[in-house]
């Protein structure tokens, strides 16, 4: 992982491309993630943001937080718009070579990725569009007021699952890995340097790159705003969220997740869920169901890792 000391020396990392005074909620995990992502990508980046909090956090017209070209887009259209931009840039390069070296980023929520946007995302990945797709996963439709999504975990309260969600979270990073794209990674806003490093790596790779970032959301998950980092880290330490990279099909665990293959090293999920009001009414039986699901994720990983070596 990059050291903070090294990072400070990097001029790009010192720049902010998502400016102060934007309209994010206090303690927004998505905003933190976006700032670090942009530090890694730098100025020559075009961002597409399908409908999500990130059509609002950027600020109401005429104010705009992004210091890079930023395209608000229809909910399902993030990835395909990027395919079009990449093609448009390719056409422009024929007339103007300075169009070289531009990175195209789709920055979408879990709803825009896991649910309504998955068809377009899958299509873009299958076409091998040369872009980075980053899902910031706050595990519900937050912009519309916390309705459940395919990314909401089992047992979590949302306004459309008032007694807790009955289904488990959809595993989209692995679905993306099944597309055979050159780079898939998971990250967490609680570990911004790990995220930064992964984005730097993705930027250098040609083809479709997919990064799935867990982004704690204070108002939606019901925790005090100063605890976003803490909650994100607990998600990783309990194994609820696993940090890894899949480079050309080869998976490696990263960051704190490296040491968590052995169940003994993982904290019980209670330590994570007790921090959040959205799990307030989860029954002890359902905690067991959720814990079992977490353990199964790890068992699946173990098999995959064993098969690789």
């Amino acid at each position: 992982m990059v050291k903070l000391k090294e990072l400070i020396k990097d001029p790009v990392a010192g720049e902010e491309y998502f400016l102060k005074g934007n309209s994010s909620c206090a303690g927004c995990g998505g905003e933190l993630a976006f700032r670090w992502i942009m530090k890694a990508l730098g100025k020559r980046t075009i961002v597409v943001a399908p409908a999500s909090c990130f059509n609002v956090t950027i600020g109401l017209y005429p104010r705009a937080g992004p210091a890079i070209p930023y395209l608000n887009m229809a909910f399902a259209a993030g990835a395909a718009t990027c395919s079009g931009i990449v093609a448009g840039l390719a056409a422009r390069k024929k007339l103007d070579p300075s169009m070289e070296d531009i990175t195209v980023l789709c920055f979408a929520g879990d709803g825009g990725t896991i649910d309504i946007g998955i068809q377009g995302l899958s299509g873009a990945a299958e076409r091998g569009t040369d872009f980075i797709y980053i899902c910031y996963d706050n595990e519900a439709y937050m912009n519309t007021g916390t309705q459940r999504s395919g990314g909401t975990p089992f047992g979590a309260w949302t306004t459309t699952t008032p007694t807790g969600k009955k289904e488990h979270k959809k595993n989209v990073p692995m679905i993306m890995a099944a597309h055979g794209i050159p780079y898939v990674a998971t990250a967490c806003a609680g570990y911004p340097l790990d995220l930064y490093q992964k984005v730097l790596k993705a930027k250098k790779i040609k083809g479709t790159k997919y990064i799935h970032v867990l982004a704690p959301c204070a108002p939606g998950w019901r925790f005090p705003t100063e605890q976003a980092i803490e909650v994100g880290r607990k998600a990783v330490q309990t194994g609820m969220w696993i940090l890894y990279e899949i480079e050309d099909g080869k998976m490696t665990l990263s960051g704190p997740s490296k040491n968590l293959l052995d169940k003994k090293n993982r904290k019980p999920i209670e330590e994570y869920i007790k921090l959040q009001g959205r799990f307030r009414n989860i029954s002890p039986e359902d905690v067991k169901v959720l814990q079992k699901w977490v353990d199964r994720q790890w068992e699946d990983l173990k098999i995959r890792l064993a098969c690789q070596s």
Partner: protein
Amino acid sequence: MTELRSELKESVRIISGNAACAWAARYARVQVISAYPITPQTTIVEKLSDFVENGELDAEYIRVESEHSVMACLIGASYNGVRTYSATSGQGLAYMHEMLHWAAGARLPIVMGIVDRGMAPPWNIWADHQDVLAARDTGWMIFFASNHQEIFDTTIQMYKICENPNVFLPAFVCLGGFIMSHTQQPVHMPDQSLVDEFLPEVPKNGWPHFFLDPDRPITHGNLQNPGGPNIDPSCWYYEYRYLIQKAHENAKQVIIDVAKEYQKKFGIFHGDLIEKYKCDDAEVALVSIGSLADQAKIAVDNMREEGYKVGAIKLRCYKPFPTEQFQELAKKIRVFPVMERSMAFGLIGGIVSIDLKAILYQHPKHPFVLPVIAGVGGRDVRVEDQIEVLKTAVEMAETNEFKTELIVSGLHE
């Protein structure tokens, strides 16, 4: 590659209506194409694939997984200031509906061929205008070609109209499924160099208002509050919408100018917003769109042989609506029968007839609009059917009695 393209010499090709679309896109040197197959549009996108893969057209071709993505791709590409093309039909057009609003709202000069077909259920793939007319108020300009030559010429003209800075709107160029898409007609094509001269050059640095440039970072499409007097003067959503309306108004003169310029350069004229046929002394003029408009000329000729003073009006451009032209025509013409392959459910007539009624309602001469539904789902519309409608209209003109019941021509008993 460039050499190969500039070699295109003047020629006459006997081709399908769909091929005319593809050839026009090639002549316009479109830079990005995105498409998804649907009957009866498919042979357009197949032909374009051939052009691109043979190196005859230097375009990026994005073969997407859905029509929603087709339009998203073209929006992304067009935001770069490059020339784009696609084509679709029926269900495909409906599927991309959300993105149609987006393209027009962002004022992107995208051109798309629409091979019109009936909306399901039940499945239907034949000429029917319900598909494109359901996109009536998306902000797109809507043109109907009535023969293959016109498909080719209109598609080329369209780039000049859409890319005019006073317009900056996307446009549909429509042709009826099978009856036009899959039949063959001779199409005269000019030297590529003449088309290059005719069309504007795509600006190297893009159009100023929609451009993705890291050196000029712009955030596009921010949320805007409603605003209002003394509330927040920095809210412009309403004004942006109004500017789309203004652009339609501006487009009217541009369409007329471009049609004239095209005639001067290529010697071909298909009308501007409308094409009049034997209307000068007519008391009745049959209004239609697409292939029915070409056929209407035969019906008019037949009627004229019997001594009736009738004419025909081809609605070449439906959006912007040729309001002024019809108001002028209504000074002399008593009855406008409108025969069309669409239904304005719950109202009386097809969709175009409703609009024509609206713009003529306050006309001092109080002309009649006679709505006639015909040929829905590609059902054959014969010259005899058009003559019958014309005769009904003539009777109305003579008796000055308006028929209120809807005429549905060619319906099974």
